[in-house]
């Protein structure tokens, strides 16, 4: 899955802009065949985060000038306190939830809409759908998930949200523009008049390694590749991932034990070697995890 390399280039954390929470651990109601951390109803590698721990990290994050808060899993809405967590986040900063949109309830969305309207900050809901039809989506995400997720999208629209539909590029290379167009057309036909769609590359680890293939030895970031490269495009230069088992370098590598950097945010600020195949995807794709709402590249 990964190889270590003593001469892998190291990425410095220049600013902790994005604080991620593996809030639902690896617990998910779905078992997607491309999941890079193999989430499922029975994967307890990471457990739900305690509400008190999330609140403690939110408080710690203020002094570190965190700019955006992201919540993922697993499926965040399986967390019994998800709404309360977001209600605690929105008074201090913008929040994004990555969801499959199949378990959210109208009562939860009503509270979240109210929390967002009370806040000056945005609440983003990112909904994972991996095909513009059941035939394209369901083999990846499970039978019936296309319809269920689209019902979730409509529920979000009904509550005043403009969800970002996030599409993992599970198809063979090429054809991205056509898939994008068909996604937009499908969402418009379903009543989402101004759809927001974000396409992201797959990560060849976890379940995805079995579905397609793992990384080859040549798919690594080298020191030469970093020469003149805008390192701010790498998630690990501006993010950390909080889990029930400590702080990890990024939202992607939590299955790699050495990617755990510490117990607190402040002790997890050190550099990290770009030694994984997934680092190569991050390098090629650029800021693949963020919303792109507020980033910015180094101009110089």
């Amino acid at each position, binding site marked *: 899955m990964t190889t270590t390399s003593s001469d892998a280039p190291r990425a410095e954390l220049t*600013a902790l802009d994005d604080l991620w929470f593996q809030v639902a651990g690896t617990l998910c109601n779905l078992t997607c065949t491309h999941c890079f951390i193999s989430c499922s109803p029975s994967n307890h590698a990471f457990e739900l985060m305690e509400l008190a721990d999330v609140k403690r990290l939110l408080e710690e994050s*203020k*002094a570190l*000038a*965190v*700019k*955006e808060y992201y919540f993922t899993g697993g499926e965040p809405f399986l967390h019994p306190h998800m709404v309360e967590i977001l209600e605690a986040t929105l008074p*201090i*900063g*913008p929040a994004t939830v990555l969801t499959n949109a199949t378990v959210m309830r109208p009562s939860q969305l009503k509270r979240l809409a109210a929390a*967002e309207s009370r806040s*000056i*900050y*945005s*609440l*983003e809901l990112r909904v994972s759908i991996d095909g513009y039809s059941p035939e394209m989506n369901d083999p990846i995400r499970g039978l019936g998930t296309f319809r269920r997720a689209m019902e979730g999208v409509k529920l979000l629209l009904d509550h*005043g*949200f*403009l969800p970002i539909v996030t599409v993992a590029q599970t198809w063979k290379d090429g054809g991205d*523009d056509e898939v*994008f167009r068909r996604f937009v057309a499908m969402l418009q036909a379903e009543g989402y008049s*101004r759809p*927001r769609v974000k396409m992201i590359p797959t990560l060849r680890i976890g379940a995805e390694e079995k579905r397609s293939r793992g990384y080859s030895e040549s798919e690594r970031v080298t020191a030469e590749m970093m020469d003149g490269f805008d390192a*701010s495009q790498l998630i690990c230069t501006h993010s950390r991932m909080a889990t029930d088992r400590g702080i990890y370098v990024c939202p992607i590598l939590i299955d790699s034990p050495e990617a755990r950097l510490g117990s607190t945010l402040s002790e997890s600020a050190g550099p990290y070697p770009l030694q994984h195949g997934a680092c190569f995807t991050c390098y090629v794709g650029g*800021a693949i995890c963020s*919303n*792109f*709402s*507020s*980033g*910015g*590249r*180094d*101009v110089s």
Partner: protein
Amino acid sequence: MSLERYQRIAAIGGVYSNHLALGAAVADARRRGVDAIFCQGDLGAFGPHPDKVFPILLDAGVQVMQGNYDNSIGEGLADCQCGYTDPRDNHFAKISYQYTFANTSDRWKAWMRGLPQSIRIQLGRYAVLMSHGSPRKMNEFLWESTTPTHFLERVLREHQADVVLATHTGIHWKRELPEDRHFVNVGVIGRPENDGHRHVWYTILDARDGLRVEFIPLEYDYRSLAQEMEGEGLPQEFIDTVLTGWWTTCLEILPAKERKRGKF
């Protein structure tokens, strides 16, 4: 270092080749009695005849700094460094950049190359830092709904400023911070603010009695601008924005709250 001292200034954000709005803004600011006029970059993009803005800036003695667009055009880079990631946004950004690059004369490209990337002044008792996107990144988007107060406090502290001015997003806003510190996004005069109104915005800051920030809605001859854009073969989507006040492109970079306020 001793800074230039002022009491009342006008701050103009992205111009986007809107020479008609620039002329109107300069005249309006003078009428309102300011000590100096500043422009925070992105002189080209979107609009017609990019060379028309430079004489206006020079004749009016506007103090100009570099935005990401000016950096790209000046340095001959491949794109505008606008920070878009959506395919449709990038499609229109490319059209705009190629037109602006082809129609900016070498003399002005060289001039933009030499512009500073920030400006510091003393405004009354306030140390003011002008940036394009943010003090740490020229093309960082600081939207009202995705910029926490604790983040701004850190930025101002690290850059030793009482007031930070930015532009780049295209939508004005401000936030008062503890200890009489302030962040102000001064808006842009290049295109309207995605609110169905055709006017554009610039900002007057007055420090004679505490800091007073006044966002100025600026009317200008948008119909003539639209005609010029049509004459230059610029995309109808850009012209529609000028004529309606609604953004039709570069939408995917908007956070949820700002996006919801628009039409598209």
